[in-house]
């Protein structure tokens, strides 16, 4: 299986847009997780972000928080996670998404090697700032794992350029001021301030033309996908909207139909 970053770069070169899906490992039994990943691959999804649960996920909304809590209570650990990663990465190009502390405790170099030997080709850590990314980038390069950095509407131009320069594989652009997740709820953290992404996407593409930029956080409908593609994104990441359906027991057919409704127009499968 090609690396996620290479697949996205090739698609950008060909002018094709991409759809990635995020799913928390351990939130459902492994057989069901694999069944869903097979469905995603068959439905034309271009890559998988495989979540490893962390006890205190500060960038997540309620859906992913609950999925992480459930995964930990069901006993998801690093060893079994790598086993599941090995299976999934045969079906879709896969990046791992978690928080810094589990990786730090494993040892950055060791974790990168383990991810690589299980077929993972990227690592995304929402709490890793570019200032602290160097050891990750070095270890990742040695192992063949992209360190994928996140940018935000809050990133000023100078900083955006630094992120664009320092990320590898692709740049993950956060869509808005807010945590992951679908809108709704009563907490003020659920009332999100949106921001126009067009200028950020143009800036990133001008500065590093071959780098794909994908938009994530809160993407849940064909309209959201269309908006971000019109703004100039190379693709989108859908997390909570799929996770919620899976946690509620949706069938593979329903999941397949939902992700197909989000597929960018004219995007042939990998």
């Amino acid at each position, binding site marked *: 299986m090609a690396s996620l970053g290479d697949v996205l770069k090739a698609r950008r070169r060909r002018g094709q847009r991409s759809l990635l899906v995020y799913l928390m490992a351990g939130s459902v039994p492994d057989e069901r997780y694999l069944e869903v990943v097979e469905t995603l691959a068959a439905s034309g999804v271009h890559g998988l972000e495989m979540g490893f649960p962390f006890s205190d996920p500060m960038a997540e909304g309620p859906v992913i928080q609950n999925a992480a809590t459930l995964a930990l209570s069901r006993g998801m650990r690093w060893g079994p996670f790598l086993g599941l990663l090995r299976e999934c990465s045969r079906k879709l190009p896969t990046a791992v998404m978690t928080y810094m*502390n589990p990786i730090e405790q494993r040892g950055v170099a060791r974790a990168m090697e383990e991810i690589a030997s299980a077929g993972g080709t990227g690592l995304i850590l929402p709490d890793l700032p570019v200032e*602290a990314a160097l050891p990750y980038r070095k270890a990742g390069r040695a192992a063949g794992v992209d360190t994928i950095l996140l940018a935000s509407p*809050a*990133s000023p131009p100078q*900083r955006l350029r630094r992120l664009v320069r320092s990320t590898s594989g692709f740049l993950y652009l956060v869509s808005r001021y807010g945590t992951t997740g679908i809108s709704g709820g009563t907490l003020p953290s659920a009332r999100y301030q949106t921001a126009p992404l067009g200028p950020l996407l143009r800036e990133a593409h001008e500065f590093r033309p071959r780098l794909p930029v994908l938009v994530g956080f809160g993407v849940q409908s064909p309209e959201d996908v269309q908006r971000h593609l019109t703004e100039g994104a190379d693709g989108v990441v859908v997390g909570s909207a799929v996770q919620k359906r899976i946690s509620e027991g949706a069938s593979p057919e329903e999941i397949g139909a939902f992700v197909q409704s989000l597929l960018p127009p004219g995007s042939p499968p990998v």
Partner: protein
Amino acid sequence: MPEWYGPYGGSFVPETLVPALKELDAAWRAAHRDRAFRSELQQLAREWGGRPTPLYFAENLSRELGGARIYLKREDLVHGGAHKFNNALGQGLLTRRLGKKRLIAETGAGQHGVATAMVGAKLGLSTEVYMGSVDMERQRPNVLRMRLLGATVRPVEQGSRTLKEAINEALRDWIANVTTTHYLLGSAVGPHPYPSMVCEFQSVIGREILRESRKLWGHPPDLVLACVGGGSNAIGTFHPLLSTHAKLVGVEAGGTGNEGDRGAASIGAGRPGILHGMRSYLLQDEEGQILPTESVAPGLDYAGVGPEHAYLKDSGRVEYTSVTDDEALRMFHRLARTEGILPALEPCHALAEAVRRAPTMRPDEIIVVTLSGRGDKDVEEVVRRGLPG
């Protein structure tokens, strides 16, 4: 204003918060140099807050123990009933300087929530406080005080429903509202610049101790103790005394004291890791998942500790130890009956350690304990656990 304390500290946060933390750092540096800011802070601390607080000789307790003389730094007498006022006022004035109109805060024991609610009312800032639902139950009087002061209290139902989860939820709110809102973090924890900024606002405690001791004895105290959860009253007490010869002891919550119970002793039973934007000692399992904590004192019930404490532990300048729930509860009753003071359960941990050490010291030696807050908030909980014999 250091960002790093040896290998500890730093700033590990989602990208959306990075510009806000840089803005806060710059505003804080400018305010700190600004005489008008400092003088407004001092005037409000004096006239509205009741500073300076007394250094009180606990004569009855000292006599009973028959060793060193024990003095209490009376932060329980600050407006609102705890040292949390010092930091809340400082950051409140900074919020006005930043031009932001909304405050959010986390609270464990409720004292920081009350202090933030007071400052929000005084400075005309809308205030929302995140509090674990377990803490809301056991610190009910403070929930009512916050509401009476005009703040909204938002219950947090995740995880162990205590301080750690309240911080998570406040951070999530801040990520969503960072352009209009200041996160008034209540302890010397979190990403830079919070640990150094909170330390500076709380250092008024140690500076007053130093000034008063020079006047009373001509030298600093021999032994100084403070309780450590996140560690803001302790760092405020210790920081100005680091360059003196005073022995400094931080006291963590030991929980039940049963075999295998870590309580909330992040330094005593934890190891370095990354949580809430900082690298510091954490209670965590071997894979880096943060462990639940358990303490009778909600203000100490936290799996992390401020990064400067982590550094001071490694350097050996400060000694860290722990006291169990039962020892702290016994101390609550003892201080009430010997000195006529109801102490908060948090500083009861530091007091209990002082009581252990006083008899081994000479009568001409001086112990100072920071009495970080008053115990009114704990009355229901203490009574529920039974009155002494």
